[in-house]
């Protein structure tokens, strides 16, 4: 067979050799392309295959008070997370997990929902595990694949409820916030401030999370936690220094709990330059509950509580300013020159005043007799202020009030401050009631005693008194730094301010707050009783001390306290405590209160104007945190 002759075979072998060389070349090129040319691409893909990112939480910045005491701190805590390849496997692990740490169904739903949002990241199961929980979980690590226990700095508020509304609380960022980029730089699962200072200064406090890599196998199971890839450490948040006097804040809290348990209200302390010394609202809540995710039941309890503990009554609730507003009327009169401190009104107080065909009552049925402006402030005489109001005129009251800052928020550096209600001109009444639907007299008399379409929050009223107590200018209050340098000037002379302060000293010495008089220190202030259509009236008191050269201004409201004179002693104790130091404010306050002004609001329309209810519908609740439910 000649085809197998050796030279024929050699011919075919030569072709075959070339064929094998060609195939070898093709394979070499294919491998060169994959391994050398596209190496970087496949290397990254391989890394993506096996590495999972575990974010490292940055410790939030510490919040200090003015003396270096710590308001918000970090303590070591444990975050317990699970890394799972699929929802089903997560469910299976959770079932075993619940043998150690019970979770209710809504929590499990929340965990599964979080997992679906970011299946390649470890899903947070417990935000704050105790050391005991952690050690029990560690024992069962073999049956809990994908268990990641991270030592994480945990927010801690040593004073708890006492500073609740001041610092606010923290929580995981919500999807809505992520969509609106309200917290720039935040990612899914980032803990952000959700109220108070935590929210306002979140950008500084938050810091930057670090990145840690863990290695997983093809089924998404955790294989290695350490030394997998270089770790990027977290950058801690910046500490912030506040103007708060933590001792004073604690004192207010203890005073309120001891003397007025269960009473709703707020107390704010300012320096004349606008620094906030204390900001307190009752009832409070424990901000530590929110760390690591508040439980659904606890969240429900806070939301369903009729006392609305999450509401910061110092900045988020409006009350009729009532009698403390009489100082504003007096200031307007002095500024416009329609009266001096020793001006008497034509009609003495006989318990009421006839205007047109209507009779307007003073809070004291037997009357105050003939009083000048100073006396009228001291005794809070309504009849005097009715006449003074008519003399100034409604247009002037409205325009001057706007200038004094009653139409705007105080501008304190906290979010969600509620804006006051204060008409800028009479056109407001025309719009609201129709040109003939309201009586100008009635509106004037209402405004003259701090009632009517005028509601203020506590911080803004306190700010006004800071202007009276200092040189006549009201600076923007602030806790860390002022939002603006705007100072609202009252436009009063030094003597006029002195006179108003003297009148307010008289309030304490012999007037409506005389029961809270202190022999050691000259105090000044003004009581008030705000109309409340829903029950007992609310009691106001704004005071300052020392009266001749004030260093602290305290404003407070107690809901359903009936009278401002019930509030005054507490405020005065706070004033004493601050000015004279520890121990001085602790003397028992035993006083007989003269009943302060509580005239029913004048009806300026046939139907009563519904007063602003401080708790019902006019409140600004802080945005809810994301509790552990989907």
């Amino acid at each position: 067979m000649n085809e197998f002759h050796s030279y024929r075979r050699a011919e075919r072998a030569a072709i075959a050799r070339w064929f094998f060389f060609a195939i070898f070349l093709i394979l070499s090129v294919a491998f060169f392309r994959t391994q050398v040319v596209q190496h970087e691409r496949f290397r990254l893909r391989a890394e993506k295959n096996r590495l999972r990112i575990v974010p490292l939480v940055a410790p939030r910045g510490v919040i200090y008070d003015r003396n270096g005491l710590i308001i918000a701190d970090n303590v070591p805590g444990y975050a317990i997370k699970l890394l799972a390849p699929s929802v089903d496997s997560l469910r299976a692990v959770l079932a075993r997990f619940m043998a150690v740490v019970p979770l209710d169904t809504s929590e499990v739903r929340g965990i599964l929902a979080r997992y679906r949002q970011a299946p390649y990241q470890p899903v947070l199961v417990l935000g704050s595990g105790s050391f005991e929980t952690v050690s029990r979980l560690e024992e069962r690590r073999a049956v809990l694949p994908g268990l990641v226990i991270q030592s994480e700095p945990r927010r801690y508020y040593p004073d708890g409820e006492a500073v609740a509304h001041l610092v606010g609380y923290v929580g995981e960022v919500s999807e809505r916030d992520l969509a609106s980029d309200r917290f720039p730089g935040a990612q899914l699962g980032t803990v952000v401030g959700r109220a108070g200072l935590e929210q306002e200064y979140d950008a500084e406090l938050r810091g930057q999370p670090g990145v840690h890599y863990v290695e997983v196998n093809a089924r998404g199971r955790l294989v290695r936690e350490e030394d997998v890839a270089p770790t990027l450490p977290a950058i801690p948040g910046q500490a912030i220094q506040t103007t708060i006097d933590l001792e004073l804040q604690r004192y207010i809290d203890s005073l309120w709990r001891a003397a007025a348990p269960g009473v709703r209200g707020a107390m704010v302390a300012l320096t004349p330059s606008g620094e906030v010394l204390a900001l307190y609202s009752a009832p409070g809540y424990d901000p530590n509950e929110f760390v690591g995710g508040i439980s659904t039941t606890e969240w429900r309890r806070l939301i369903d509580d009729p006392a609305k503990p999450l509401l910061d009554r110092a900045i988020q609730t409006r009350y009729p300013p009532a009698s403390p507003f009489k100082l504003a009327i007096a200031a307007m009169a002095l500024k416009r020159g329609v009266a001096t401190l020793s001006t008497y009104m034509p009609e003495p107080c006989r318990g009421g005043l006839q205007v047109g065909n209507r009779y307007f009552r003073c809070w004291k049925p037997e009357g105050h007799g003939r009083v000048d402006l100073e006396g009228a402030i001291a005794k809070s005489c309504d009849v005097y202020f009715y006449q003074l109001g008519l003399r100034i005129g409604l247009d002037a009251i409205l325009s001057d009030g706007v200038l004094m800052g009653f139409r705007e928020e105080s501008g304190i550096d906290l979010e969600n401050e509620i804006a006051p209600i204060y008409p800028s001109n009479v056109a407001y009444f025309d719009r609201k009631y129709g040109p003939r639907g309201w009586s100008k007299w009635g509106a004037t008399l209402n405004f003259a005693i701090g009632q009517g379409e005028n509601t203020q929050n506590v911080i803004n009223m306190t700010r006004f008194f800071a202007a009276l107590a200092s040189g006549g200018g009201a600076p923007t209050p602030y806790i860390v730094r002022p939002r603006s340098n705007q100072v609202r000037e009252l436009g009063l002379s030094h003597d006029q301010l002195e006179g108003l302060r003297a009148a307010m000293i008289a309030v304490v010495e012999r007037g409506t707050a005389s029961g809270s008089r202190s022999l050691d220190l000259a105090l000044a202030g003004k009581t008030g009783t705000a109309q409340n259509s829903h029950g007992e009236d609310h009691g106001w008191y704004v005071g300052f001390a020392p009266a001749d050269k004030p260093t602290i201004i305290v404003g407070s409201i107690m809901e359903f306290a009936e009278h401002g004179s019930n509030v005054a002693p507490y405020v005065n104790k706070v004033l004493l405590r601050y000015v004279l130091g520890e121990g001085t404010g602790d003397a028992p306050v035993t006083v007989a209160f003269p009943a302060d002004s509580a005239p029913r609001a004048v009806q300026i329309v046939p139907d009563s104007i519904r007063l602003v209810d401080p708790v019902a519908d006019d409140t600004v609740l802080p945005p809810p945190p994301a509790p552990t439910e989907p």
Partner: protein
Amino acid sequence: MRSLGPDRPLMAVTLLLAVYGILILYSAGQTDVVTQAQGVWVRQLLWLGIGVVAAAVTFRFSFRMLEWLAPAAYGAGILLLLLTLVVGTGQGTAAGTRSWLAIGGQQIGQPAELAKLAVILMLARYLSALREPPRNLRELVAPCLIAGVPFLLVLKQPDLGSAIVFIGILFLMLYWSGVKPSLLFMLASPGLSLLLAFNTWTWGVWMIVLAVLLFAWRPYVVEAVFLYIVNSAMGAVAIPLWQRLAPYQQNRLLTFLNPEIDPRAAGYHAIQSRVAIGSGGWFGNGFTLGPQKRLAFLPAQHTDFIFSVVGEELGFIGVMVALMLFLMLFLILLRIARRATDPFGSLAVFGVLALFFSHVFENVGMTVNLMPITGIPLPFFSYGGSFFLIASISIGLALRAAWDARLSGYADT
């Protein structure tokens, strides 16, 4: 005349490949996750020992004996394949197929591997007995039947990879027997028709090209007409045939064209294999240290995709070394086939070469997506007894051919 030891280059290359293979197989078992691959290298060492014995035994067989045994071996192979279809079981990555024979639950081997050797011997016997190599299609019917019967039986298991190997053996052995390339092309044309029929335009162009080629090569008119009809028929049945394929078979072919179609399921193997190889770079991640393998991202890392372990851990350099060793093996076998003393020996050795080549090209090609993914072992690397045994016998056969050639003094020319 020089010393009469067995062919040293072949022994050396085979030994190097076997050592390399065992090392990689050892590495394939070094994972962070429990896989089947753990410890299989020890069992493979056992197979290596058995293989050496088998090669030595084969070395004792004369080619006359083998030629005489060929029909019996072929008949036994066909019988076993038929038996497999009836009582076969699946195993490992090919769990869904019936490619294994088991006795009392103990799996004893894959008859397809034995059938490959039987077909080589049978084809060698048939082709060497011809006075002239096949000159037309009619004369090709008999060798096509020899390879075609086991091809169809294996395809029925279904084991596409092994089936392709039969085709490779058939064509390469026909070439070595002296069949003209144009005739081989005509033989292959129905297959090309089948592939090109998925696009009407390519198929149309192909049919015109075929017509021109038939005109130029001038086979018998009857055969030309027959061939043209068969090609047309292939184009017609292509789509129905495609629809009759199992979905996983369709997916394999589709993902071969674009693995990203279904990266989680069908394309997973193709993608992970390339990721592992690509991440190896020039020098690899280091022996036993490949993360894709360690973390079980690489599928079947001890059998079908063992070459990806080479790529990941030893890099392009390691791949080149392995490919060079295979190339050397091919060239040595080619030399032996060229110098064999008789046509049967020459064809048998070339058949062995065709067997190794088909396996290497198909297996290595699929790891870089040059070939569609089929479950086919890489000689000397993949874990598995049946094929290792066949490979050892093949080497023993080649050694015998080289020995015979030297005895006859042919080696010195």
